[in-house]
């Protein structure tokens, strides 16, 4: 449905081409939070231990009660690569892919921005921000931490 004002509206930003997350029932809390710009983890509601990847039972006390906890969004780079060939689907330029060790003590696969591949080092302090995907979703990505 078109309206007369549409032709004079400023150009829309390019549509995101990044793949949308694959959402499973046990990890839905993570992606729902990401859509709102929140970076969260899963903890056992009985023994309070964090776990990742998400799962329906605590491996320590076997409780099925879960709670969603906010994470600091800070971590350090553990490993880093740049996929060259074949080109990753959904990216104009190959991204830097990293595993980040979160302050809370587990790792996450994500992207690193605002730095050249040659400058990335193990232990580089990083912080979270969010990148848009196809289908109006967001995923957590990282950049060097600002002092």
């Amino acid at each position, binding site marked *: 449905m078109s309206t007369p004002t549409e032709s004079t509206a400023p150009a829309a930003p390019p549509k995101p081409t990044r793949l949308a*997350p694959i959402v499973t029932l046990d990890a839905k809390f993570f992606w729902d939070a990401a859509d709102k710009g929140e970076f969260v983890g899963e903890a056992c509601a009985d023994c309070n231990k964090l776990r990742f*990847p998400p799962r329906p039972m605590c491996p320590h006390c076997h409780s099925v009660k879960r709670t969603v906890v906010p994470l600091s969004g800070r971590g350090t780079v553990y490993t880093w*690569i*740049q996929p060259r060939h074949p080109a*990753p689907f959904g990216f104009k330029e190959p991204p830097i892919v990293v*595993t980040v060790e979160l302050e809370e003590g587990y790792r996450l696969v994500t992207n690193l921005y605002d730095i050249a591949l040659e400058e990335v080092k193990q232990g580089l302090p990083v912080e979270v921000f969010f990148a848009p995907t196809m289908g109006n979703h967001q995923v957590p990505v990282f950049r060097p931490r600002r002092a």
Partner: protein
Amino acid sequence: MTRHFREAAIAGIGATEFSKASGRSELQLAAECSKAALDDAGIHPSEVDGMVTFTIDNSDEIGLARCLGVKDLAYTTRIPGGGAAAVATIYQAMAMVNAGLCNTVLVWRAMNERSQYRFGQPHTQNIGPQAGNGTGSLLWCMPFGAQTPATWESLAAQRYMQQYGVTNEDLGRVAVAQRKYAATNPAAWFYGKPITLEEHQSSKWIVEPILRLLDCCQESDGGVAIVITSLDRAKDLKQKPVKIVGACQSIPYNVEVISNYYHADLSMMPEAEGTAKRLYAQTGMKPSDMQAAMIYDAFTPQVLKQLEGFGFCKRGEAKDFIKSGEIDIDGILPINTNGGLIGEAYIHGMNNIAEGVRQVRGTAANQVKKVERVLVSSGMAGAIFERV
């Protein structure tokens, strides 16, 4: 069949040609390699009573049994974990024979993995939470552009390389050694095509700064089958029996296949160390009892990590072991003497197991002298083959 413990042995191996376009169905490849393995053993195909393959093999047990005319199938099972399943198929077949449940177990893997689909291309389809497909936590990788086996491997391999100062040139020496073996193996896709370290170093980055093109296995069409029976029966069959002295698997807590980023220290390979510990305890053997090894080599870093995991060298020393020629034909431990998955073909690890059998039989294209025992590994599973 009376149930009592029986030693197991490999009685037959078979394969199709290894190509990039087989021109026939995966089921036909499966049937052809299975018939070849049974002919090699001197067992009529109708006698197969156990079948083992990978969860991700596209051919159906009953479809294959119908091709072979199998008269009464007693046991079927499939192994998860992609290539990590390779040696686990031998482990399962051994256990089926040990337990007195089967007399003739057929293990197969057949794929048109170049002409029909390509493992090396971005896996943007069908990577959901599929149990048993070896996909692990790949859903946590896909939106970030880590969409191929090479990227998943590299994200973990880098920690090992950083920890021990392993360079891409160190990895290149694995590729050079294996392509040398392939060059003199007429069954290898890269027969007659050795490479130099310079050629490795000038091949394009697949994943910077970890893997170049020549660090990666091939994408291949083909099939490999292996026939396991009791040691007693194998002694009366067509080939010299190859005894399965022991076989086992190890999946330590928080370890998974390929998207394996969640255990404590990515510079080590807990699954290989766990498999080695269990295998040596089961058999009473040690690394120095082996005259050769066939090691899952989808990518070069896996070879270094498994050499260390199985105790052939200490942690961090695989690069020096390789540099000083110890994996070559006259070294301490010749490995992947068929050229491996890099040089011969990528039949998901099964062609390396068949090479282990040939080395024990004494019929390999690149035969190691005085072979008594060969270790075969697919990272999460291992086995020891022995001359009888």
